[in-house]
C-alpha cells in the first residue's frame, strides 16, 4: 500500500509530472540516472562518506528530560538534525543531489530558496564539489534574509533576486523552473523539498529518509521499542517525510505532520495547505494546494519562512488521504512560545519551523502516559531566526516582515 510512487511518479492520485514539454526529457534523464546510481555502490559510499565526515551524521537522538518533565507526560526525544553542517536537515538532500549532478557530468547547479536554508545548503555542496551555483530567491526574502544572501556569496554562489509575483519562495520556485527550461542542457536543478515533478518527491525523500532510519534504530536501542508518536513540521515536507518514511509500515506508530497556521486558519494569513487547501496542480505535481475557487494559487503566511509555501509534497497528500498520517496546524504565536520553552528548558534554540513541531508536542505530551514515547524531528537550529524573533517580540515584526 505504501510502496509509492509508481512508475509514473504517482502517490495514489498525487504527484506526476506537470511541466512544460521542454523539461520532460530532462526529468526522464534525471530519473534514469537516479535509478542507475541508487544501485551503484560507489555513489552510495560517496554520499555516506560525506554525510558522516562532512555533515557529522549520524545526528543524535536526544532525550529531552527537562522538557518531558515540564510537560508531565510522554518521554520526548529530539532527533537533532539541527546539529548537521549548515544547521538543518537540508544538507542531506543537497549532498545527494550534488553528488548525482557530478556523476551526471553537470557542472552547473541551480536551486530555489525561501529563507535561504536550502540555498545555503546548495551553495555549500556546490563549493564542496566544485560546481557553479546560482540560487533564485524572492526579492522580498533577499531583504529579509540579507545574512543568508551574504553567506551564499561567501560560498561562491550567485544569488538572483526574483521580482515576479509575490517575490517569495513560490516565485523563486517558478523562476528556477523557468531558468532550467532555458538551460536544461548543462544545468542540474537541486530542488529543496519533496515537491515538484517526479522524480523529485521520491528522490528527495530517499535522500532524507536517513533521518528516520537513524531515529528508528536509535529509539529501539534506547527504549527497546518503537515510539508511540513521531512529530515533524511540514512546509514542502522534506524533513517530515525523511523521518516518517522508515516508520510508515510500523502501524503502531502515529505520524503527525505540523503545518503553519500563521495568524490562524480562520484568517487568510496561514500556510495550512492540508488543513485548508484542496487538490490541485502546482509546480509540477498534483497535491494539496492553497488556491481560490478559480484555481489561482494563494499566498501563504507563516512567521517561519520555511513553512511559508502554498503547496505540499504529494506523498504527504497521499499519507493524509490514506489516513496513515495526521496533519495539524500551529499558529505563529504557539510556535514562538514553543521556541522559548525549548530554549529555556533544554538550552536548544530551535528553528521557527521546528518550533511548530515542538508546539504540537506541548499539546499532546501531557495527554500521554509517562512510559509513552514521542520522537520529534528538530529539523534545524534557530540561529537564522534570532533577528526576526527579536523584531517579533519587540512588536515590530509586521513592519520588518
Amino acid at each position, binding site marked *: 500500500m505504501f510502496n509509492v510512487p509508481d512508475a*509514473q511518479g504517482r502517490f495514489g492520485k498525487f504527484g*506526476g*509530472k*506537470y*511541466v*512544460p*514539454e*521542454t*523539461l*520532460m*526529457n*530532462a526529468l526522464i534523464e534525471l530519473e534514469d540516472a537516479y535509478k542507475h546510481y541508487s544501485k551503484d555502490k560507489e555513489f552510495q559510499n560517496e554520499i555516506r562518506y560525506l554525510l558522516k565526515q562532512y555533515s557529522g551524521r549520524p545526528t543524535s537522538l536526544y532525550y529531552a528530560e527537562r522538557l518531558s518533565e515540564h510537560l508531565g507526560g510522554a518521554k520526548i526525544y529530539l532527533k537533532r538534525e539541527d546539529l548537521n553542517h549548515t544547521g538543518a536537515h537540508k544538507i542531506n538532500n543537497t549532498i545527494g543531489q550534488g553528488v548525482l549532478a557530478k556523476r551526471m557530468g553537470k557542472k552547473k547547479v541551480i536551486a530555489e530558496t525561501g529563507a535561504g536554508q536550502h540555498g545555503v545548503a546548495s551553495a555549500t555542496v556546490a563549493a564542496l564539489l566544485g560546481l557553479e551555483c546560482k540560487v533564485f530567491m524572492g526579492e522580498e526574502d533577499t531583504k529579509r534574509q540579507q545574512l543568508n544572501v551574504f553567506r551564499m556569496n561567501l560560498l561562491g554562489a550567485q544569488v538572483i533576486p526574483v521580482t*515576479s*509575483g509575490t517575490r517569495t519562495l*513560490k*516565485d523563486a520556485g*517558478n523562476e528556477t*523552473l*523557468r531558468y532550467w*527550461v*532555458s*538551460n*536544461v*542542457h548543462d544545468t542540474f536543478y537541486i530542488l529543496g523539498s519533496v515537491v515538484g515533478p517526479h522524480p523529485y518527491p521520491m528522490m528527495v525523500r530517499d535522500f532524507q529518509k536517513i533521518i528516520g532510519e537513524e531515529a528508528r534504530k536509535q529509539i529501539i536501542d534506547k527504549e527497546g521499542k518503537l515510539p508511540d508518536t513521531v512529530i515533524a513540521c511540514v512546509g514542502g515536507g522534506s524533513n517530515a517525510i525523511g523521518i516518517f518514511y522508515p516508520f510508515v509500515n510500523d502501524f503502531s506508530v502515529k505520524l503527525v505532520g505540523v503545518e503553519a497556521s500563521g495568524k490562524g486558519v480562520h484568517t487568510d494569513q496561514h500556510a495550512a495547505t492540508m488543513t485548508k487547501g484542496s*487538490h*490541485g*496542480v*502546482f*509546480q*509540477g505535481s498534483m497535491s494539496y*494546494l492553497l*488556491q481560490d*475557487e*478559480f*484555481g*489561482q*494559487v494563494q499566498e501563504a503566511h507563516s512567521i517561519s519562512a520555511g513553512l511559508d509555501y502554498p503547496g505540499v509534497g504529494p506523498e504527504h497528500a497521499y499519507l493524509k488521504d490514506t489516513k496513515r498520517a495526521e496533519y495539524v496546524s500551529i499558529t505563529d504565536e504557539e510556535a514562538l512560545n514553543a521556541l522559548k520553552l525549548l530554549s529555556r528548558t533544554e538550552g536548544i534554540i530551535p528553528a521557527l519551523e521546528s518550533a511548530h513541531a515542538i508546539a504540537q508536542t506541548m499539546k499532546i505530551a501531557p495527554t500521554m502516559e509517562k512510559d509513552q514515547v514521542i520522537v520529534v524531528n528538530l529539523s534545524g537550529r534557530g540561529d537564522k531566526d534570532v533577528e526576526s524573533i527579536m523584531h517579533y517580540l519587540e512588536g515590530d515584526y509586521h513592519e520588518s516582515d
Partner: protein
Amino acid sequence: MNLIDQKFKELKKQDKTALIPFLTMGDPDIETSIQIIKELEAAGADIVELGLPYSDPLADGPVIQRASERALKHNINIHSCLEIAKKARQKNVSLPFILFTYYNPVLQFGLESFFEELQAHQISGVIIPDLPIEEDEEVRAISERYQIHLIPLVAPTSKDRITSISKKAAGFVYCVSSLGVTGVRSSFYDGIDDFISLVKQSTDLPVAVGFGISTNEQFAKFSKICDGVVVGSAIVRNIEEQLPLLQSAETKEKGLLQIREFVAQLKE
C-alpha cells in the same frame, strides 16, 4: 468541421501561413480585450490564442507574467474569459479561438464542464503548457468528445518524444522555437530548421511555431517552413505600451489602431 481545421484548409489552398496572435485576456480589461480581438481580425490574423491569466505562469517570460498580474488584479477569471469570447462573436468576429491556459484552473473548473463551456462559446482548441502527454489522457478523451482540439507543444528537447506527441495531436502541432519561456528573442534554437522538418515528417497535421517571434522578417522566415506562426509576447508588449492610450476614452481608438498596425505589418 472544427474552425481551426477549416482555417488551415483554406490557407493551404491559398498557399498562406496562419498568423496566430496571442493576447492575455482582461489586460487591461474585458471590454478592451474584445476590441483588441476585433483589431486582430482586421489586421489579418487567422486564428487567435486567448490567454487565461494565471498566478503562476511557469512557461511564460516577464511580458506575459506582467500582463497576467495586471489582469488578475481586476479579478479576471475563467468566466470573464468565456464572456470575452462570447461578446467577440456577438461583434461578428469569426476567427477560430484557442484558449491558452495552465492546467490547474481547468482542473478546478471541472474537466467535463470546461469542455462543455468551450464548446458552448465556440472555442475550437486548447493549449495547456503544463500538461505533457504522460498526464493528458483523461483531458484528451473529453476534448475529443466535444470535438475541441487539444493542441500539444513540442520542444527542441523533445527528440524521441516527437512521434508520440504528434500521434496524439489534434488541430496542429505547436513547435517551441527555443529552449526557454515565452518572450521576444533575436535568435532561435540552432537546429530549428531540422527540428521543424522532423516534426513535419511526424504528422499530417499543420505545424506552427511560436515562442519569441516578434518581427515580420521572422514571420517571413518561418512562413517558408511552417503552416502557422504564433506571435505572443510581442503583441502583449505592444498592448502594454499602448496602456496609457487604451485607458482613456479619448485616446483609446488611437491605441487600438497602433495594435492593429503592429499586427498587420507582421504579415507584410
